[in-house]
């Protein structure tokens, strides 16, 4: 019964096709942080630097990637990429957690050839209080960027799967809108199934 319910949700809410915004490459890879070779590292990359905005948790114990990403956005930098790992939240991990988050940002920036200022924001989700397994994550970043990114529907679904934790289905929607004769497209990914009562600012 439980399996049937999960299967129903997947077929009901996961789109089989979509229309996606121009100029983005997305995808994911398995680093081995999550068990059974599940996808656990995703990247959303804009082919040109994009304007960026974010709202973050108001929890007083902000995870390292939240602190690092907020600082990068506060500098007003244009953003090329968002990198997200799942399986480990890199939260309550002290100074080493901050270093790890910065290292991930630096590695993504170097791989895409953007080295002047930080142009990547990072996010993590998963277990709190454990350090990131950098030995598993860092080597997979070049592979993900150089080999696993694409603009197809399958790439977007894969990207959505790479950020899942206890989620039973990837959350992905896309839509085109017309404003004063111009057609724009929005795509959205989300994840979350538990510890959910956000109040972001």
């Amino acid at each position: 019964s439980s399996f049937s319910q999960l299967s129903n949700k997947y077929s009901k809410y996961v789109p089989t096709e979509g229309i996606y915004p121009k100029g983005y490459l997305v995808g994911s890879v398995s680093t081995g942080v999550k068990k059974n070779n599940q996808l656990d590292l995703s990247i959303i990359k804009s082919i040109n630097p994009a304007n960026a905005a974010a709202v973050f948790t108001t929890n007083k114990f902000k995870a390292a990637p939240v602190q690092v990403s907020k600082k990068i956005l506060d500098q007003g930098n244009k953003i090329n990429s968002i990198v997200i790992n799942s399986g480990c939240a890199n939260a309550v991990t002290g100074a080493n957690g901050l270093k790890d988050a910065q290292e991930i940002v630096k590695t993504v920036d170097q791989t895409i050839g953007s080295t002047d200022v930080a142009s990547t924001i990072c996010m993590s989700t998963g277990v709190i209080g454990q350090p990131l397994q950098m030995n598993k994550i860092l080597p997979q970043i070049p592979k993900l960027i150089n080999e696993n990114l694409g603009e197809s529907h399958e790439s977007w679904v894969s990207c959505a799967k790479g950020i899942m934790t206890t989620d039973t289905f990837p959350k992905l929607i896309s839509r085109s809108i017309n404003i004063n004769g111009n057609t724009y497209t929005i795509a959205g990914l989300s994840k979350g199934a538990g510890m959910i009562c956000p109040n972001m600012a």
Partner: protein
Amino acid sequence: TLLGFLVTDAPISSGALQSILKYSVDRSFNCISVDGDMSTNDTIAALANGEAGGPEINESSGESYNKIRDEFTQFAQSLAQLVVRDGEGATKFVTIKVQNAESFKDAQKVAKTISNSPLVKTALYGKDANWGRILCAIGYSDVPVNTEKTNVSFIPTDGSADLKLLVNGEPQQIDETRASEILEFEDLEIHVDLGTNGDGEASFWTCDLSHEYVTINGDYRS
């Protein structure tokens, strides 16, 4: 943890993107609850790379700005609602709509309190039309309520007549068979009218609380 990403090829200025994101998140991701816990990592980020061309949309763009802000808001609501539908162990998707509060913030506070009540959520799981628990949650929300003009109804999602549970503060004779029929649906709407002179209105989206939630979270770390 909640993570979300909204990416567009529209040419939205940096300032406009931040204000659009805040407006839309306040009406979407900040209006959902699965279990009442706030993560250390919650983040919603937006990118706008302008690859679709067209004139830049900024906060002075008038109609264009309002239109894209409203599109973002609807879009964010759809994405946020998927999170609730996939809530750990969830079998129900519940919309709490609060009307006639003194302000939007009051309406939101009441909706959030009902959404986070473990007793309301377990009653929903058990398909028990326990309006008393809903009233109780309204009562401790710490916002002005006209108890003699408060109304609570279940709105079935098949378009059939609503089930009035409380009218002007008076409990109704509930048709339990009808209540059970409504609670059989995966989706349910609960309407609350606080009966004040204000016109504050807010919606919140939540799910039920099941045995499965405990099973999933009893050993998350290991």
